[in-house]
């Protein structure tokens, strides 16, 4: 198995963010981590990436314990954060070279890996442009290229389509799915946008820190007795599903 989360709980000063969360993801699986805002998705990402310390439970990545083998675990992880973490005043190449060095890749190896990943993301011709001059979709592609530079086996994406137009969102989603099939990379894709999830996808539905469902999108529909995932999401979480292009309801806007 690729990711094994075992009974993790996490509390902030005044709020329980995650409660007894457990799930297992297999190698090469695309898994959507679905949940309304505040469900605990970002907290889970912070725990998976060691930004926060585990308070309770265990996390294993490729069989390695996050607490006892952090170095090996971080080598296995590629992360795309919700907010862009690229340096806008540096070029694409410089941003990627910085990340490569953080993983201990020497200059020559880094250059080869950067060229490969930019090629894969169809961004090679933009290597020497400043990030500031790129549009949102291209910046995201650069961030995915960056996350893959050190050849991780697990890719974590925290609401990666935030701020993108529908076309760019769709393209990015397809790109990442391709990675799963081509390179057997396990993907955990956190989102609150229901149209980014296919019925056959593995779906983890998180709500108020609890795992409501851990099957496929179809299982989610069966569980709720609804025929559409958006309706299933709404019924299980009592929060209207967000579908881009539709005006947010009063509750969503709050």
């Amino acid at each position, binding site marked *: 198995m690729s990711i094994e989360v075992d009974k993790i709980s996490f509390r902030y000063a005044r709020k329980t963010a995650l409660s007894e969360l457990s799930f297992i993801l297999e190698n090469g699986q695309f898994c959507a981590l679905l949940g309304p805002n505040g469900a605990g998705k970002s907290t889970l990402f*912070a725990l998976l990436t060691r930004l926060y310390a585990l308070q309770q439970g265990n996390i294993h990545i490729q069989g390695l314990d996050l607490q006892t083998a952090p170095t090996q675990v971080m080598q296995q992880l590629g992360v795309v954060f919700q907010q862009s973490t690229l340096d806008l*005043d540096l070029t694409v190449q410089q941003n990627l070279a910085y990340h490569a060095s953080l993983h*201990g890749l020497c200059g020559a190896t880094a250059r080869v890996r950067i060229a490969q990943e930019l090629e894969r993301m169809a961004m090679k011709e933009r290597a020497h442009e400043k990030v500031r001059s790129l549009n949102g979709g291209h910046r995201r592609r650069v961030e995915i290229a960056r996350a893959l530079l050190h050849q991780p086996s697990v890719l974590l994406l925290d609401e990666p389509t935030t701020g993108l137009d529908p076309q760019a969102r769709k393209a990015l989603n397809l790109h990442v799915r391709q990675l799963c099939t081509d390179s057997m990379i396990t993907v955990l894709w956190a989102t609150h946008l229901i149209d980014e999830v296919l019925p056959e996808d593995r779906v983890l539905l998180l709500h108020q820190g609890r795992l409501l469902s851990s099957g496929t999108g179809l299982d989610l529909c069966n569980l709720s007795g609804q025929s559409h995932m958006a309706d299933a999401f709404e019924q299980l979480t009592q929060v209207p599903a967000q579908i881009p292009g539709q005006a947010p309801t009063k509750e969503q806007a709050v």
Partner: protein
Amino acid sequence: MKMTPAHYWYCFQGILIREYLRFIQQRTRFFSALVRPLLWLVVFAAGFRAALGIAIIEPYETYITYEVYIAPGLCCMILLFNGMQSSLSMVYDREMGSMRVLLMSPLPRWFLLVCKLISIALVSLLQVYAFLLIALLVDVEPPLWGYLAVLPALLLVAVMLGAIGLFISSWIKQLENFAGVMNFVIFPMFFLSSALYPLWKMQESSEWIYWICTANPFTYAVELVRHALYLKFDGTACSVTLATALIFSVFAIKGFNPQRAAGGGKPG
């Protein structure tokens, strides 16, 4: 894959190159950082030149002008502002932005922070040397070899100030903006030191201010730089600066760990 010394070296190189690239991208910040000490050197020192008589004191071998006296303190002032500003942004950024990218490295966090502190220090040195070059215009002319001898002293002082900045911004939540750090840390550290007046002058005017100055690590930083610039070595100043740098680095790294702050973060 096991991390070897080569991996550590490439990582340090990468962090240093990034700091340098950011530095050359932000030329306006470079010039504005120079304006502050130059104003002190040209305007403040001009006014005080007549008011203060400086006796022959170590490490100088002759009577000196006030400009010559305050130049080492102003070098440290550049390092002080840079160190505090950079450390504050490191703490502010730790759960987002560039610091989060840094923390995704598989290398130990203490190593990443030390690399960051040293890289910031090395880039700050470029500003100090630019300041010393301009200071030649007002007859601050240390011996030629002094420019080289002062390099390790400046580096040590810069790391010490960066570590103090990181410690303060990590542990004291009330000082999470730069105005707070400026009022409660930078100004007291700078004024209550030997940067502007020799300690014997302080002692003449007030015993307790003198006592505070001698307890201020910035005093030793300034004296270390002053002596090195004039090819002398102040053992006490070096020991105090080194010890302060080490102690604050340890506590700063311990305090910086974002995992420590998790209890107070925002749920997502």
